């Protein structure tokens, strides 16, 4: 990941020979390519012939000072990484230099640890920026938006919320059943945020064993525990400058919740087995398919963490609540899989489409995608037929055939009530009716919490 040191060209600009020499030697010994200049004028001469990745510039020099030189370098190399060197007395000027676009500043005499840290950071950041620009050139801008497919009011609202929140640095909580595309939404927010050139780091908290989550998130120092042969950066550190997406956040233990809360408050971490604080700066996006409020009430999720992450929430509706999007999604997946499997399947028959729209899709978009993949695989003609669809999708039809509308309605309402645990408000919302209408239907069909579906 890191740019090899012997590919990093550093130019040290200082009027004091002793600084040029010792600093130059120090970096050379570290393996960097180093060049030195004694003045602003000499720097500009060198810039006419060569290019550098990193400039270390003394702020106080006779003739052209560091600030002026910085402006000149910016004109020639707008994306140059410039680090200002200063004595204690002129720290304020260094801060001014940073306002004008210097990457960082270091104070003479340099603390070796800090010096190394600043340079490594600058190099890593430069590397990441370069990589992300390359990646982005390959990606169509806003492509991620296009992957969130749908015309339904519910999905349009989601897209609107993404647009609204992306540009800010607000913490976002994405809610929705599994398979609704929470990761896609997180990626879309990141891709449209000012942090888009930096990485998005994805952690599925539900998939991590309790024993490893700490070192996954915080990283560890060599020898921190048996098997820790190398020092390793954790996800918090890897997400520095970018976005951290914690999926299934409802699954983390109370201990990890405490750790996470501390990181969010202090913006600092310690690696496992380490005692040097490391600053981290990331935007947090969390997602859950759990009822976090219920977890809070049960004492399984910390209330303070809940409020910390639930700043702006986006709820992705389940597929059965936006059935009008099913044809669009199905066609999208059909094209995708027909292309990748190189099969001449061009459409979905009316009967098959009707089945797709009737089915409830408990696994949501992911389940639909899987069903279409399978259908393209087994399809022998140019159109997907009902028999190409999974059996359970067909069964949903058969169970409805021969039933009166009232029977289907009764069944459907009973099922929704069961799914929502007889939460009348939630069930009414899912059914698209008001609570009084739902109450009347419950009376009409004589539904009870244990009625057969």
């Amino acid at each position, binding site marked *: 990941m890191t740019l090899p040191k012997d590919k990093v060209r550093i130019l040290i600009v200082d009027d004091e020979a002793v*600084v040029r020499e010792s600093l130059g030697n120090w970096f050379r*010994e*570290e*393996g960097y390519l180093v060049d030195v200049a004694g003045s602003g004028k000499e720097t500009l001469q060198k810039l006419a012939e060569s290019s550098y990745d990193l400039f270390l510039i003394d702020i106080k020099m006779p003739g052209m000072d560091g600030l002026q030189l910085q402006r000149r370098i910016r004109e020639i190399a707008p994306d140059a990484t410039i680090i200002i060197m200063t004595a204690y007395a002129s720290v304020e000027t260094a801060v001014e230099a940073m306002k004008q676009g210097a990457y960082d500043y270091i104070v003479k005499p340099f*603390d070796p*640890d800090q010096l*190394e840290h600043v340079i490594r950071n600058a190099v890593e950041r430069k590397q990441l920026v370069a990589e992300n620009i390359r990646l982005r050139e390959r990606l169509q801008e806003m492509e991620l938006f296009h992957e969130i497919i749908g015309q339904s009011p519910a999905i349009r609202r989601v897209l609107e919320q993404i647009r609204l929140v992306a540009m800010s640095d607000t913490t976002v909580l994405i809610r929705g059943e599994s398979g609704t595309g929470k990761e896609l939404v997180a990626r879309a927010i990141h891709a449209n945020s000012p942090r888009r050139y930096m990485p998005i780091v994805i952690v599925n908290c539900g998939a991590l064993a309790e024993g490893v989550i700490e070192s996954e998130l915080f990283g560890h120092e*060599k020898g921190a525990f048996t098997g820790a042969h*190398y020092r390793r950066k954790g996800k918090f550190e890897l997400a520095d400058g970018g976005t951290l997406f914690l999926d299934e956040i409802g699954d983390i233990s109370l201990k990890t919740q405490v750790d996470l809360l501390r990181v969010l408050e202090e913006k600092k971490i310690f690696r496992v087995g380490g005692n040097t604080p490391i600053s981290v700066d990331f935007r947090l996006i969390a997602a859950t398919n759990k009822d976090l409020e219920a977890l809070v009430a049960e004492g399984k999720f910390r209330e303070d963490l809940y409020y910390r992450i639930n700043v702006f929430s986006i709820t992705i509706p389940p597929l059965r609540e936006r059935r009008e999007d099913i044809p669009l999604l199905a066609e999208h997946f059909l094209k995708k899989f027909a292309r990748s499997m190189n099969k001449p399947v061009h459409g979905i028959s009316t009967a098959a489409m009707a089945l797709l729209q009737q089915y409830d899709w408990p696994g949501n978009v992911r389940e639909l995608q899987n069903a279409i993949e399978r259908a393209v695989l087994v399809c022998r003609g140019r159109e997907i037929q009902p028999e190409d669809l999974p059996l359970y999708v067909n069964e949903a039809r058969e169970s409805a055939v021969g039933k009166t509308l009232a029977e289907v309605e009764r069944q459907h309402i009973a099922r929704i009530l069961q799914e929502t645990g007889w939460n009348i408000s939630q069930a009414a919302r899912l059914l698209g009716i008001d609570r009084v209408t739902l109450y009347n239907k419950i009376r009409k069909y004589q539904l009870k919490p244990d009625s057969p579906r």
Partner: protein
Amino acid sequence: MGRALIELVPIGNVDAEVLDFLALVLPETLPVSCHIRNHPVELEAAYHPLRQQYHSTELLAQLIRGHRNPAAKVLGVTDVDLFIPILTFVFGEAQLGGTAAVLSIYRLDQRFYGLPEDRRLFFERCEKEALHELGHTFGLVHCSDFECVMHFSNSIEHVDLKSNAFCASCGRIVREAIARLASAPKAS
């Protein structure tokens, strides 16, 4: 062909146990003989009153001036805090591929960091940093291998992280350099 020699020169009031320990353990890692030699070093000449530290390059220069044996490397060991002009402090300084190196044990002691004394840890750190500075005199530059004693350490945590051994490639270079040193003509 004789054995290459490392001379340990105490500078200031260095704990004799540290020197004895180094003389004992350095030959375990380096195929050398190791002796403690007294050589007068003018500490005050290196003192910087404003920084209240000692300029390591000046101490290095004195060690080189007093050096006679071309088949030997010299490692000055001091209990004072060292600096070079651009850095707030250094654990040591060495002539890359040269004859002399200097090591400060000042910041290797837990007590410097306000922690209770830990002799075992302190001695281990002294060994690592002695090997590191001597490695430079054998021409080694910093190594990217975290375990290698030639890995750059600018804080005590980094010293503790690395091992007291050379990685395979650094070890090879050191052994070749020592073999050349051992075959160097002896001073008369």
